[in-house]
């Protein structure tokens, strides 16, 4: 090889029979960034085309969910939310879980949904899951404005004390980690659902059940000691707790749990990205 390198010149790309684990081209991803933003833009345009309320749905959806949760879990079942008003407590959970749920279900079927593109034209395959991530993060940011409005209402009219603490700085990182968790799970399942169509039936059910081992509608403090390990083994738990602690001043987590969450999620993300990159070229023949 070394001999031919001298006589032969440089090739921009190569298609071989094997994709190596390290066949990464950040340059290529960067070159296609326009496509990424265009896909995000497209998702927003498409979602609210020909609807009366348009983008208002981004905040209406969590509001409607909130009403149901406050009534069912807050009033009837009586989940204790401590000193925090149920509306604020549930809204925090709903928004963060919404990001998690939408991002996962949005990426878990990309090989089936985007086969019409994947099998017709080449572009870095990761552009699609990245654009879906971008779309849902942007939606989440818009929904945070809703949270802020509700906060201001409680602050001024209900004189709910606002406890600003240093963990507020950790919120963006927590949100990104939650997104990274959903993305990596989505990437793994996108490969599995492409190979095994049967799984698509389980995926929706699975994510719904997963919500119950995540402190979305209950605080971790409410979980009986005996089964608490089931909830704390979930990397999302510490992130949900720290999110609510930073915003509402209530939540239970330790530095160890946070470190565990962060490290396991980063590991998951790296593994899923590498696996996706390796499998994607091969899966086009299967789907």
């Amino acid at each position, binding site marked *: 090889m070394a001999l031919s390198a001298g006589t032969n*010149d*440089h*090739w*921009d*790309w*190569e*298609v*071989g*029979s*094997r*994709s190596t684990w390290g066949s990464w081209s950040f340059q290529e991803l960067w*070159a*296609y960034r*326009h*496509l990424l933003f*265009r*896909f995000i*833009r*497209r998702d927003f*345009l*498409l979602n609210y*085309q*020909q609807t009366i309320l348009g983008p208002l749905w981004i905040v209406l959806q969590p509001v409607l969910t909130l009403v149901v949760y406050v009534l069912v879990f807050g009033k009837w079942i009586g989940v204790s939310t401590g000193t925090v008003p149920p509306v604020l407590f549930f809204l925090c959970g709903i928004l963060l879980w919404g990001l998690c749920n939408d991002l996962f279900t949005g990426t878990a079927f990309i090989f089936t949904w985007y086969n*019409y*593109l*994947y*099998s*017709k*034209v*080449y*572009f870095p395959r990761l552009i699609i899951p990245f654009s879906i991530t971008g779309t849902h993060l942007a939606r989440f940011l818009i929904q945070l404005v809703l949270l802020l409005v509700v906060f201001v209402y409680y602050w001024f009219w209900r004189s709910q004390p606002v406890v600003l603490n240093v963990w507020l700085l950790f919120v963006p990182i927590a949100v990104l980690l939650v997104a990274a968790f959903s993305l990596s799970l989505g990437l793994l399942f996108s490969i599995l659902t492409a*190979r*095994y*169509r*049967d*799984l698509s039936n389980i995926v929706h059910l699975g994510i719904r059940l997963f919500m119950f081992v995540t402190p979305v509608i209950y605080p971790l403090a409410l979980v009986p000691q005996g089964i608490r390990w089931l909830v704390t083994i979930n990397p999302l738990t510490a992130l949900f707790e720290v999110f609510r602690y930073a915003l509402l001043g209530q939540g239970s987590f330790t530095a160890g749990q946070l470190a565990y969450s962060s490290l396991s999620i980063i590991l998951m993300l790296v593994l899923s990205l590498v696996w996706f990159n390796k499998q994607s*070229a*091969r899966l*086009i*023949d*299967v789907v």
Partner: protein
Amino acid sequence: MSNVVIDASGVSKVYRLGVTGTGSFRQDVKRWWNTKLLKQENPFFQAEQAKASEIWALQDVSFQIKRGEVWGIVGDNGAGKSTLLKIISRIIQPTAGRVRGKGTVGSLLEVGTGFHPELTGRENIFISGHLLGMNKAQIREKFEEIVSFSGIEQFIDTPVKRYSSGMYVRLAFSVAAHLEPDILIMDEVLAVGDIAFQKKCLDKMQQLANDSHRTILFVSHNMQAVHHLCQQAMWLQRGKLVSIGPATEVVNSYVGSLQQNKLRHRWLDANTAPGNEYVRILSFELIPGMPAPEGVIDVRTPLTVRFCIQNNEAGVLLNAGLHLYNYAGECVFDVASPAVVCEEGMVKGECHIPGHFLNDGAYYFSLIVVRDTSIPVYYYEGGIHFEVADYRENTAWFGKWKGAVRPQFPFSFGPDHSPSTGSG
């Protein structure tokens, strides 16, 4: 520095039928359980294994393409042309071998890839452009040109789902034709739009082909277009490279091969020859009237059909009919021979079809034997398959020539010198 921009060496692609891609988790687990853990061969799986066959879509294909060349890829359906283009476009991976390349590749395997029906023409132009590897500035620069080429200025801000199919295809082709990758890959894109737009497309293709920096790979079944646009060509058959070289030679040998062995049929054993107890067809041949036997039948070629049948009944009034069908299944003509009283033995027939009569396309002859000018005795369907290639001179039009037939009737055309009978 060599100016080879695509270097393919030993490219092969195997598709396995039956084993993988069944898409059921249960089946995969079951197969794994049976073969790996129990070490037993379930008869069901054995049967499945035997059924599983490998299809070599491409087999050891190697070639080099230099910068600025325009290549045509020809071959029958299923010869592996599209698979090869998909590998070069990096959509799928070869099973063996590799393709290396320089510069950006824009592939246009299907017109309108990436178009979303709900989005406006404007949005779709940008998405398609980005998909084909252009950046925002490049698309902006070409935007006006794309829109005016497609001729849909008024509708550019309307969702494309409201477009007519013609408008849709015109916009899609315009985007693709204006993108500027170093290597452009096109698969059967000429069959779009109305005739005026087809002409526009071909002109645009010609313009792209003349650009000395642009390398083009072009798959088409339109031999005339390949011949006209491409300098180089390769011919694939069942995944193998049959011939590679100057387009004229490759196209001629490809078209020639389509005809060989299909034009002459002789049966030596009367018992197995097609027919029944009354008649047997012993030979059925098409002889093109051209000097070289390996030449190509085109629209100018006169044709002779010759057949020989064995009659097993004495003193019967027989006649024969020749039916010419095109591949759309329409009967182009039905000519009947005169009826004669035949004794037992051989009966011969011959029919001439003049040149400058059939349009280009694929045809087949069927032979019918009739008794007493009304009762069919035997119908031999689809006996001779052949293709008529296009040939034209003094025209710049390379789209499909219309009509079931293409006769040359006397046709005068020119300034009118007769005394005017008009308003004078």
